[in-house]
């Protein structure tokens, strides 16, 4: 079997192109990241990034709105866009023979979006529709409130926007945001799958090489406030989300805490799943994970349960958070290592997820980790190291959000200074 190869090329305008060839596939994928995410929006304009993203897809270069979509569909491309905290991202995959033309379409979109005035109204409605629909998704609403509460008014903004702020956003603001943030200086373009690296780089130079501008900026994170917030809803279930400070991805201790959180709430044998769902039958869904930004991160955990059993669910979750300080077991650590290794191999089957992982590595770490490097990192993780870390850094739950018919009582030590 032909092996994969990794490549990197930086254009003179600052665009970083990352590549990994996977010659056993029939398809290729790209991930294009522009530094235009929700954290860069001016205060009171949450939705500007989402609206700009929506407008960008409504015609560019020689294509009108409909022509652009049809052109991607004729290439059989599977495309999507995504507004996140730091980036607006576009990704796409298609059969290898159509990969070059697909990149050409997205070069037009990133550089020459029409932003037609007559598309503004429908684009605004699309963004509003998306937010309206999320109102019926109470688990998501709960996690959204937690995110805002924990990460504060800039970084904690919900990337899809805010229904109250959207109507105040003008066409000129969108046009200005596009001009300012769709720039090459911090753009990341990652490519994975079956494609020819040198021919593709030549094409990329031709498509993006004569584009200029942009500046680098790093956003500071304010310290999280300690608080409990309850949103009243006449739902059958009470939704519980809580957060505790953690170490961001890219810092030395990240993998130590990642292992601990894996033992706590990742998978069916995790402590939360076992204690809350399996032993007590309190809920259908319960999990914990790490939400990491550039300079800050938190452990988040969610459970949804019928209102009458919500207090017992919260109390059980809190007990499991506290018990983590006593450490994890060898079996738990091995399990997490196997999960990470399986995830790595799964990326080798999907060029879409590989392209996404490469772009993320570059943004957070400034390099793309090889499989060997990750395996070496895994081998260095030991139970004594994880447990020493947990003993030295007790986990404190500082943020709690509940959505449901009635608020809950705060267990000892939760949301207290």
């Amino acid at each position, binding site marked *: *079997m032909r092996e994969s190869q990794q490549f990197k090329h930086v254009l003179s305008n600052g665009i970083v192109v990352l590549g990994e060839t996977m010659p056993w596939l029939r398809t290729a994928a790209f991930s294009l990241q522009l530094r235009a995410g929700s954290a860069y929006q001016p205060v009171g304009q949450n939705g500007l990034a989402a609206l700009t993203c929506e407008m960008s897809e409504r015609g560019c270069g020689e294509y009108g709105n409909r022509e652009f979509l049809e052109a991607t*569909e004729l*290439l*059989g*491309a599977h495309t999507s866009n995504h507004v996140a905290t730091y980036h607006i991202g576009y990704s796409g*995959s298609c059969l290898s023979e159509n990969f070059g033309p697909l990149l050409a379409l997205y070069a037009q979109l990133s550089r020459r979006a029409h932003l037609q005035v007559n598309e503004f109204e429908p684009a605004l409605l699309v963004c509003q*529709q998306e937010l*309206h629909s999320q109102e*019926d998704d109470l688990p998501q609403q709960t996690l959204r409130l937690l995110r805002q509460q924990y990460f504060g008014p800039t970084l904690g903004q919900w990337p899809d926007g805010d229904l109250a702020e959207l109507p105040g956003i003008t066409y000129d603001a969108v046009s200005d945001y596009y001009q300012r943030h769709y720039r090459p200086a911090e753009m990341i373009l990652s490519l994975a799958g079956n494609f020819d690296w040198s021919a593709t780089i030549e094409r990329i130079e031709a498509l993006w090489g004569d584009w200029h501008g942009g500046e680098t900026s790093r956003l500071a994170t304010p310290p999280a406030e300690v608080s409990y917030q309850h949103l009243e809803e006449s739902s059958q279930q009470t939704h519980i989300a809580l957060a505790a400070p953690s170490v961001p991805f890219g810092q030395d201790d990240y993998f130590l805490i990642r292992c601990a959180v894996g033992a706590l709430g990742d998978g069916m044998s995790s402590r939360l799943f076992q204690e809350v769902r399996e032993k007590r039958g309190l809920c259908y869904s319960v999990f914990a994970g790490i939400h990491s930004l550039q300079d800050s991160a938190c452990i988040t955990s969610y459970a949804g349960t019928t209102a009458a059993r919500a207090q017992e669910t919260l109390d059980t979750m809190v007990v499991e958070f506290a018990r983590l300080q006593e450490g994890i077991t060898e079996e738990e650590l091995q399990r997490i290592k196997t999960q990470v290794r399986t995830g790595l191999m799964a990326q080798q089957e999907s060029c879409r997820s590989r392209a996404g992982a490469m772009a993320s590595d570059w943004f957070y770490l400034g390099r793309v980790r090889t499989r060997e490097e990750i395996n070496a990192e895994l081998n260095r993780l030991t139970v004594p190291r994880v447990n020493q870390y947990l003993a030295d850094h007790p986990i404190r739950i500082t943020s709690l959000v509940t959505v449901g018919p009635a608020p809950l009582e705060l267990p000892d030590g939760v949301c207290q200074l």
Partner: protein
Amino acid sequence: MAFANYKLNNGLEIVVDDNPHCQLTAVGYFVRAGAVDEPAELSGVSHFLEHMCFKGTPHRTALEINQQLDDLGANCNARTGEESTVYHATVLPEFQGAIVELLSDMMQPTLAEEDFVTEQQVILEEIAMYRDQPPYGGHEQIMTSYFASHPLGQPVLGTEQSVSAMTPTGMAAYHRQRYSPSNMVLAAAGRVDVPQLLQDVERLTKHWPVANLPPRQRTTVQGHSGRQTLVVPQANQHYVLQLSPGPSLHDPDRYAARLAAMIFGDDTGSRLFWELIDTGLADVAAVGHYEYESGGVLMSMLATRPEDAEEVWETFERLEREFSDKLPTERELQLAQAKSIAALCSANELSENRMFDLGSQWSTYGEFKSVDEVVELYRRVTLADIRRVIERFPTTHKQVLWIGPDGESCSAE
């Protein structure tokens, strides 16, 4: 790629799609047990039983099952539908033996009283959870209204009453019937050690009790038309669900019908998309196919703000009427074919998808078409075929369910 099929003495069929380029091994048991097989008093038993297979076997406790699945890094799950229950896992190739042993063990659950009672609560939570998510609560209601007394009208989750009233004894009897090896298929795809697989499965399943199961009756579907309203006070959006006739899993017109549905209501680039989504009038406007052995349905779903609900509905109905007059063009067909074919090829790169495709095909048809063969079937569809399916499956005969925060604004005719 190497496809092969085998049949053990106990009737269990094994199908394999071995591909050395894949990095993972995916395996799944496909059981012909679903809502259509349930007597009314056991409504929801297939799904409840699926949960119980994770709750303990003669060799393992629930905790041990979950722990071992996680130890193997298994991306494991199960799903129950109208006509089947599937248990599947994807692992590193080195864990093939262990995962096959574990999944096989899970197919013979203990059904202990204590676990049964705890799991009953989890299922009741699951029913409550879906009821908090408006369109899902409506799904079972409209299926019941459309299919009425036909077995496809039975809710997969069951009802609060049927689940509360269920007993381990009733479930055990159902299990003895439906989980007979002759009623199951084991599919494996990705990187597979075939000789090892055959040897393991033979050994692991030879003690399984064999039941004499009559073949499933295929009663013809008579869809029931009508209009109903479901009031969900906490809903912020309005939703419309609609069912109309579609081809069954055995209908040769299903490829043309899928393309026609795509032209009309795919979530991007379709007629619905340009009038309802691109304009920002609706949040969701999409049409999907549900194909079953005894019949099929076209399910349309709309979601929008209450103030736009009427306009969205009128536009939808107009586009529906127009679809049989302004027939699809060559260009529309070409776009739908390009999308379908690329999606198929791309999905086929993952071991897990290959396993699903293989297992579903084999347990439905007893044969396997490779991705290239299926691509060819899509390529061959002509505009004449599209016209024929539009005539064969008229949307005039339909069941409509409005879901919204109040009954009044839902009653647009």
